[in-house]
């Protein structure tokens, strides 16, 4: 009877092997999927037990921190409230909801668990403590941007063109991220970050892109002469300059200074669809900004159909001439236009924009540093210098004079995009620019929505100037 007993034991061993295999299915192979399953309440509960790291501004002030409750769970507080709400976002662990940096830097804030530290961390069973996320956001300049926008709907984005570090990201309406539930009920979509999601017709600020394409493709120089008469026929319809002013033959520089529509419509058509498309893409159009921010909270800029589908300049449906002056169906985010200004400012090299500068663990050791990296080479150094000079003229003697600062050379471009029904005369007022021209430290984009007679030079340029002044003032 011993042989069947041995075989019987063999069967038991096989059955136990099945148990171990199935246990490893759930603990190892399917572990991630099970933990991500929406039915799994313990993921949310465990999340509440994590002492999430802080989010800090450039000057070290705290933008988000965790507070331990009586039951050992943690909740988030945001000392600066609505000032940084869109950039920082929020995290409600009990609901499993988060947004902004809280979402995009979630794994760092929960604490990067790698290698041995994760094993010993698990064995120890102590509270999981997250890492601190340091950003380049500048509270003073952010406050200036908020004051400048006031009660208007609009947004300000400012960045360091040499590194891509975001200094200011503010938009109105904002919300108190200590209470995003209330914000979700607000009637004018307070939770939407207009800086990254808001699509505005860029108007004449887009002439900076057209100019870059014109110069860098070699088809034009700053001194090329184009006839600036008004109106001209573009795509079968008459196109007028502002106030119907008819200019004679003018240089490209003069055309940018006075923002002559008819000139840039001709320039764009001369440059051609494929070239315009390729330069737009170099500036970042038609892609989500490469920002460390949740993709769901960003929108790609470009021409869009009425249904919101992206439409490339090579398509017949695009009115190339009108697109070249920022009209037609062209829509851009403030983030995108700040990148346009940044690319010109940084000698044609567009840097990858980022909010985070570094991540430090609880022992103060740097676990991650975000180094500046190049997103694309948009134009040659020489072309960038030429265009910077043209944009300086805009501020010194053209439409952007309100952006002038004492002792600092500012370059920029205004934009006044007429929106709303004809006759109401509502405009989106834009200004994009950078300073100091010789060695730019700040690039900025400002937009205010639905302003009656809202010239960019009147409404947006002064805000840009104040933000630039604040950021440069701190740098000294």
């Amino acid at each position: 009877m011993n042989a069947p007993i041995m075989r019987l034991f063999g069967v038991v061993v096989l059955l136990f092997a099945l148990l171990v295999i199935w246990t490893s299915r759930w603990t190892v192979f399917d572990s991630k999927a099970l933990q991500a399953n929406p039915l799994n309440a313990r993921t949310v509960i465990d999340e509440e037990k994590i002492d999430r790291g802080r989010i800090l501004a450039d000057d070290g002030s705290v933008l988000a921190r965790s507070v331990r409750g009586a039951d050992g769970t943690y909740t988030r507080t945001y000392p600066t409230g609505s000032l940084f709400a869109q950039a920082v976002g929020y995290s409600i662990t009990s609901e499993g909801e988060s947004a902004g940096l809280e979402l995009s830097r979630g794994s760092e804030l929960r604490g990067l668990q790698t290698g041995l530290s994760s094993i010993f961390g698990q064995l120890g069973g102590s509270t999981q403590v997250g890492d601190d996320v340091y950003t380049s956001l500048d509270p003073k300049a952010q406050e200036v941007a908020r004051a400048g926008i006031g009660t208007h709907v609009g947004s300000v984005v400012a960045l360091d063109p040499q590194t891509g570090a975001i200094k200011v990201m503010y938009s109105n309406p904002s919300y108190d991220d200590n209470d995003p539930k209330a914000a979700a009920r607000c009637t004018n979509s307070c939770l939407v970050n207009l800086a990254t999601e808001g699509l505005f017709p860029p108007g004449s600020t887009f002439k900076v892109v057209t100019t870059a394409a014109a110069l860098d493709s070699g088809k034009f120089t700053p001194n090329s002469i184009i006839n600036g008469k008004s109106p001209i026929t573009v795509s079968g319809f008459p196109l007028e300059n502002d106030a119907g002013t008819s200019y004679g033959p003018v240089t490209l520089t003069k055309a940018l200074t006075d923002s002559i529509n008819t000139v840039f419509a001709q320039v764009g058509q001369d440059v051609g669809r494929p070239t315009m498309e390729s330069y737009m893409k170099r500036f970042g159009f038609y892609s989500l900004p490469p920002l460390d921010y949740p993709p769901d909270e960003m929108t790609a800029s470009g021409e869009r159909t009425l249904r919101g589908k992206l439409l490339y300049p090579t398509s017949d449906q695009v009115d190339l001439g009108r697109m070249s002056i920022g009209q037609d169906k062209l829509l851009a985010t403030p983030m995108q236009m700040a990148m346009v200004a940044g690319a010109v400012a940084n000698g044609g090299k567009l840097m990858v924009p980022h909010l985070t500068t570094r991540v430090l663990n609880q022992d103060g050791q740097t676990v991650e540093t975000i180094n500046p990296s190049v997103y694309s080479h948009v134009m040659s150094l020489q072309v960038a210098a030429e265009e910077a000079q043209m944009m300086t003229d805009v501020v010194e003697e053209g439409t952007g004079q309100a952006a002038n600062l004492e002792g600092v050379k500012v370059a920029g471009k205004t934009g006044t995009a007429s929106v709303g029904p004809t006759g109401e005369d509502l405009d989106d007022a834009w200004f994009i620019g950078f300073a100091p021209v010789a060695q730019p430290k700040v690039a900025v984009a400002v937009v205010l929505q639905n302003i009656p007679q809202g010239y960019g030079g009147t409404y947006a340029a002064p805000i840009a100037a104040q933000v630039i002044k604040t950021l440069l003032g701190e740098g000294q």
Partner: protein
Amino acid sequence: MRVRNRELFGLLPAALLVTAGFAGVFIQRSDNFAKLQSASLTYGLIFLGLCLVGHIFIRITLPYADPYMFPLVAVLACFGIVMIYRISTTDARQQAQWFVLGLILFAGTIVVFRDYRKLERYRYVIVTVSLLLLVLPRLPGIQDPVNGAYLDAHIPGVIVFQPTEFSKIGLVLFLASYLRDTRQVMVMSARRFLGVTIPPLKHFGPVLVIWAIAMAILFLLHDIGSSLMFYGALLAVLYVATNRISFVIVGLVAFGIGAWYLGAHIPHVHARVEAWLHPLSPTLYNQPGGSFQVANSMFAQAAGGMFGQGFGEATLVVPGTHYPLLPAPDTDSIYAVITDELGLFGAAAVLLTYLLLIARGFKAAILARDSFSKLLAAGLSAILGLQVFVIVGGVTRVIPLTGVTLPFISYGGSSILANFVLVALLLLVSDRARRPSSS
């Protein structure tokens, strides 16, 4: 080293485990180290004392018995008490009392059935009592269905117990005794067909009987797991007795057909099968009697990962409430808690401990010199292994989830008492088998 001294040293891991385990739970609960020292050491010492008493008793009564069985049981029981203490302190106190009673019953079994072969004389009494015990949970006034399965007998005001725990021993005893007499008849006069030896049809009688018992369990108790456990063990005894694989094949096919038919027609059993097949379907998950328990067992194991979250770190209830995240954490789902806290490695270590204990049981069966002893030891070891397989398999979704206990670890008086009797019988067989044959 002498046999009994090996057993004594074998208790060291159990002692260390229980002390370290209690210390771990205390550290997790509070940072009060003063309280920790006194309390955990007290618990550790009491348990170590109990194990020592058990050892001294074996040393006196069963000097030749297998030296590893008792320490392995002690490791499992000590581990169990720590796990239960971590889940519920009151349960742990009761479990400790059951442990003491279990040891008394263990000693009683060894003293009364020192010559266990006299049990054979009472085999028809034993089988009648065992079958009556199985029916007990369905009697009016006693029945107390839990999640639709009738495993508990509830005599109001007196006791709640699981009769299946006891009848599993009785049925194995009966079959071992019965087959000792008839195995020769069953093997002889067999024909061979396609390389498989097929006994005459009339000898399939015993297979038919145990099949009927298993189906009756499924039908009466509404429990696939218990049914599988009984059937598997009885089939194992039959196989060892006859060495005829044809019995096993026919038996398994018959069980499959029966389980499939009843599974489709008994609503509760059907629901269990559905929950087993689709545990993560939101409808089943939110349905009463649905897949909530199976799904959360899986979630708990996923949270444990390779190394576990650490003793006392598993989330059992929604924080701040008594709303359970994992139903029956101290009984049915205790394996999920173990995996959650100690990970794949800890869980595999527990399974390995069981496997070692079962291996010692089979070893006793091999060493035994008479058919009854061999069949008894093999049957008891097989049913122990199958019980672990049924409950762990249910929690890990190898088979549909069922309400049997994890022997020596799960909370439950019946389970502790019955399994101590089972181990006492294995030790008795082992002692007789290893005794020098001078007498």
